């Protein structure tokens, strides 16, 4: 049975850095000891707008990196796209602000028990959790290749230090303003075959995850996708964030992406049924 992340805690976290990077903001929170339980693929849920906010729901962001240091204790880093009112508010906060967060949430990426050839695929800010993941995979002896894509170059998030932990990095933009022109899926089959990829990790827009799933399935490669469905609570109590998942018995049921995910076995997600009337479920 699915359960909430056992380490999840609610706390006041201090925003200790907020820096623009391309189209995104790199935001770092000091969260204390709980950082030890934050794994690649987990997310943080942040209360936005302050005390008199009309925004009553938290915003979810993938944890891109964690660290522990002497000055600030445990810190988590997020890569935030200023999208609507909540994320814009967050990107406008200054260092020193105390913000209510719940962390860590959700299921993390599964790590292979034996060294394997891994391919990490990120769309837009979806690359954020992949660099932390790359570190872990590297430390377990995996080969780590990475493919990133976005509409424009400013939406490619690929920090210098991050690049160091991957064996190769390929970038695609739709307008060709960075890397090759195209999408992450453009040469995917070839890359998987050439590099003898055994496991794919992906994070990005749902359409990208679906496209990756199709290719991964056709080649029989394991694929862990970190999904992004709108979440009201992030902790499993509201049932808004569900996705149609095919179980081992072949039947489809609606699973909460906040606690059964966000990392899911791509092959079990019925991408075609997302947003469709549940009457069609088998």
């Amino acid at each position, binding site marked *: 049975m699915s*359960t*909430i992340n*056992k380490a*999840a805690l*609610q706390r006041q976290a201090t925003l200790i850095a907020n820096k623009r990077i391309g189209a995104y903001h790199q935001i770092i929170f000091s969260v204390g000891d709980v950082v030890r339980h934050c794994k690649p693929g987990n997310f943080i849920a942040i*209360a936005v707008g302050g005390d008199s906010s*009309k*925004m*009553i*729901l*938290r915003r979810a962001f993938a944890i891109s990196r964690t660290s522990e240091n002497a000055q600030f204790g445990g810190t988590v880093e997020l890569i935030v796209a200023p999208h609507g009112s909540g994320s814009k508010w967050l990107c406008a906060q200054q260092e020193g602000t105390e913000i*209510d967060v*719940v962390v860590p949430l959700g299921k993390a990426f599964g790590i292979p028990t034996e060294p394997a050839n891994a391919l990490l695929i990120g769309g837009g800010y979806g690359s954020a959790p992949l660099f932390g993941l790359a570190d872990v995979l590297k430390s377990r002896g995996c080969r780590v290749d990475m493919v990133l894509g976005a509409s424009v170059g400013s939406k490619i998030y690929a920090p210098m230090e991050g690049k160091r932990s991957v064996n190769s990095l390929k970038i695609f933009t739709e307008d060709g303003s960075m890397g090759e022109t195209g999408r992450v899926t453009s040469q995917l089959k070839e890359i998987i075959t050439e590099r003898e990829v055994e496991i794919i990790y992906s994070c990005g827009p749902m359409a990208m995850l679906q496209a990756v799933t199709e290719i991964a399935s056709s080649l029989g490669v394991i694929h862990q996708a970190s999904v992004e*469905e*709108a979440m*009201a*609570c992030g*902790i*499993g*109590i*509201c*049932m*808004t*964030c*569900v*996705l149609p998942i095919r179980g081992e018995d072949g039947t*489809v*049921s*609606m699973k909460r992406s906040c*606690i059964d995910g966000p990392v899911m076995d791509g092959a079990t997600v019925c991408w075609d049924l*997302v*947003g*469709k*009337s*549940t009457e069609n*479920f088998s």
Partner: protein
Amino acid sequence: MSAHSVDISTTLGNAWFPAPIFTASGCASSGKELAQFFPLKDIGAVVTKSVMNKPRHGRPTPRMAETPSGMLNSIGLQGPGIDAFLANDVPWLLAQNARVIVSIAGETADEYGVLARKLRSTPGISAIEVNISCPNVENRGLVFATDRDTSCRVIDSVRKVIGGEIPILAKLTPDVTNIVDVAKGVIDSGADGLALINTVLGMVINIDTMRPHLGGKTGGLSGPAIRPIAVRAIYQVREALPTVPILGMGGVSSGRDALELILAGASGVSVGTASFGNPTAVISIQNELRELLAQRGFTSLKQAIGYAHRV
């Protein structure tokens, strides 16, 4: 008056609760997740997500839209069905020493009867909340509580099965011309108390897709935005039916808000949407309420119930 010595216990019909703040149905699932943030036995009761006879997938996504000081949801009663629920969730809750109020929903008056029969044979449940007001069903005709007669038929069929062992609370919608009329009807049909209010029917149009944002098109509006509607409904019903216990809900996110509903006439208060924004909302609200009661010189919660009606 110290906050600690205020007696905050309450009753709904013949059920006693050590504290007046409950979770709201559909906003705590079956309690497991919130238990990570506070002990469930410390609050009044866990009101579980409305359960139907059969497992149900619910409505398509997107299922939520945030609105100013509120949100819309269109879950559509997704759930495991009563049998799995009684086998797994109720025993777990009872093992936590939590009080349990089971919310039931059906597509026909008979289905409610069937559900009630299954609950009757389950020991340990404190009360039944009969959800006749869920706006998130394909056929809006299924919102029994928009009609006095169909509401009464549902309560009738539950009453026939439950002989008075545990109280029956009828949950009503504010989306009616005259909520007092529906309230009187269900009380005449044998409900022991009322749960007020369910969500208000609303819609958000996505200005990018230029279509209704929710998969189910319409959804139920909840959160602080609707609190004035909840207070009004509770006040009106309390005025008309002063002896009928009311479990109040709608936009409560602080002790102040809970007190407002209690002064209007609620004997207990369910907290729904506030838990989404703040997983410790239920317990904080209960603590704040205790303080506010003490500051006002109340020695027990009961003195405050309906106090706004005094002449």
